[in-house]
């Protein structure tokens, strides 16, 4: 019997939740001229769904669509895309009607974003019980701890800062040989350290438990993650798949594209939501996993690593049908 994960679906648009059946539908293969114009997020929707379907059927004897435990809804990188209260209410209602657990996903925020989150927390704290809030900002964790104690914080993937870089996802990285007596030793130690995080420090685990954190979420990473190391973390560990977060900014590079000469556009200034109109694609001379700049963040597709991670996933698999922007 294979290790069995619980399946959760992470979506950032309310339309995808309301039309969940469509969101998770495997369609017949479109004609090549359509495939050519589909963006990576849409293509990956079909590829990853097929992978998930095949894996769950083959190894777990389950149909993925009937085995969804919960919905993650929200936004991790841009406070301008935090869902409205109405959308959160709709998502909660959808989950209640379908007996799915609901988790609100929150980004790192500036002062205005924090005010937006307070409105959502106010509602969830009063109108729902024990709702999970995934936090990617220690300020948000503190706010929940001090003002919204009915909410259950989950440590998000942006607070576990293990290195990743699409350029070295397949080709590997170089080690600078500057005054290094034993390169092999460094190579081995680096490989170990890259699979680890400060979460393995008991003092940090106790601190987080004291803050009500009961589980943590991380990305699927190309350096691999040793289950023995994950065990040391002292929390159930959930994996995001197939879109791995790489980097992001409160100064949006996508929005700046319509302002030639500017490198970035501050989150705090009026946004025209250019992220709904276009993305950036990358080319590299190195072999690497597919990577796109969508919204204010860079995302790498780790669909191909499914076998390695599905086998060790004993917590939740947080499946992202689309890039969560």
């Amino acid at each position, binding site marked *: 019997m294979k290790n069995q994960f619980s399946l959760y679906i992470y979506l950032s648009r309310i*339309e995808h939740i309301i039309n969940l059946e469509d969101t998770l*539908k495997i369609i017949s293969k479109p004609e090549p*001229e*359509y495939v050519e*114009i*589909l*963006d990576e997020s849409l293509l990956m929707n079909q590829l990853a769904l097929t992978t998930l379907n095949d894996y769950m059927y083959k190894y777990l004897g389950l149909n993925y669509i009937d085995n969804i435990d919960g919905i993650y809804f929200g936004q991790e*990188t841009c406070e301008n895309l935090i869902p409205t209260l109405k959308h959160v209410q709709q998502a909660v209602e959808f989950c209640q009607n379908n007996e799915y657990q609901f988790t609100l996903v929150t980004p790192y*925020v*500036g*002062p205005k*974003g*924090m005010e937006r989150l307070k409105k959502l927390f106010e509602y969830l704290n009063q109108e729902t019980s024990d709702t999970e809030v995934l936090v990617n900002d*220690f*300020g948000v964790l*503190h*706010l929940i701890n001090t003002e919204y104690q009915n909410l259950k914080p989950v440590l998000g993937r942006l607070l*576990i*800062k*293990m*290195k*990743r*870089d699409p*350029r*070295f996802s397949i080709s590997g990285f170089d*080690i*600078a040989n*500057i*005054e*290094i007596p*034993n390169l092999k030793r*460094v190579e081995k*130690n*680096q490989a170990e*350290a890259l699979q680890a*995080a*400060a979460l393995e420090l008991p*003092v*940090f685990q106790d*601190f987080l438990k004291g803050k009500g954190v009961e589980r943590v979420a991380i990305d699927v990473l190309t350096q691999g993650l040793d289950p023995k190391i994950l065990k040391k973390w002292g929390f159930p560990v959930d994996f995001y798949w197939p879109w791995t*977060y790489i*980097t992001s900014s*409160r100064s949006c590079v996508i929005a700046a*594209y*319509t*302002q*030639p*000469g500017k490198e970035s556009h*501050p*989150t*705090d*200034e*009026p946004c025209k939501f*250019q992220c709904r*109109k*276009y993305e*950036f*694609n*990358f*080319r590299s001379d190195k072999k690497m996993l597919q990577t796109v700049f969508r919204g204010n963040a860079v995302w790498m597709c780790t669909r191909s690593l499914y076998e390695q991670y599905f086998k060790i996933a004993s917590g939740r698999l947080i499946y992202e049908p689309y890039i969560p922007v």
Partner: protein
Amino acid sequence: MRIIAGISNAHQPQEIQGYAEAGVDEFFVGYIPKEWSDEYGWELSSNRRETANYQYRSKSDLSNVVELIHGQNKKVYLTVNAHEYNTQQTKLLLRILESISDIDFDGFIVSNVGMLLELQKNGFNQVMNVSIGGGSNNIETLRFFRDNFENIGRFILPRKLTISEIEKISAYASENKIRLEVFGMAAYCVFNDEFCFTWHGPSNKCFCQSPMFEFREMKPLLFDTNWKKEIASEGVGTFYRRLAEIKAEVELMRNEYLVKHPKVKMSVQEVNKLHVLASLNKCGLCAFQKFKEWGIEAVKLPLRGQDFRGNIAITEIAKKVIDQPNASPKYCQDLMSSPNFCSGPNCYYDYPYPK
């Protein structure tokens, strides 16, 4: 308002006096001894710089530089601000810090919460400044650190906060006697450092400076959330028309912006200032007056590893603005004397503000 600048073994010890005379009040340094680099190389640094020439390597060099700085009656902080540490790295770093405990730092600069807890547990009672890696983007994060840790010194605010966000945070900070530091000039990056998990360093060029990032390609998004139904019901021609429409719309937005913000050409006089401007890449000088009024304690000039002559020129300009009462943006821009540089894109804090 004070100036804090980074220095390293790339700088001659005698340069410290030059920096102090130019106006630097505080310094920060990194320390990667052989014990660390023999185990983890340079890519996994114990601080946020993954390059050999941004660090001190020997205890004697480090001790010497701290003495020289204190000799100038200036302060010096040690950076312990990598994003992550595993158990082995934590143990090694604590041993290294123990081995230099007789060096009198004025504090540490820390970002990882686990590391902060370990430092406290192991009796390091130094003042702990919260690095930008701590992600102090809002008031609640200041509260998080202040309520949970002793000896918190100053918060270094992330570079991506706007001037109006800094105003809100500093109003709270000043009421609650919380000390703040902001970035002043140079070392801009389009990404939020505290949430950038890519590789840096000499062998693996920063992602943001890589050709892959520089030559990114815009691709219109043709579909919204109902794409599965759309492709089943519409002919492909609809989407090619949409492709052309989005491209045209984006081009129009770009052109409209250019008409409103025409590019200013660089003059010969400005070319003569390239030793300053090239090191800067971004400048927040016009915001200094506001920072002073809001009680910001320090501005950071991250000049480590850069040319001494340019660094001194930058420091002197920053100092002039700090010392000038009511230093207006015009005063600052006259000091830069580079209309091209001050034409917009090089602003740290997106002047003119508010929009």
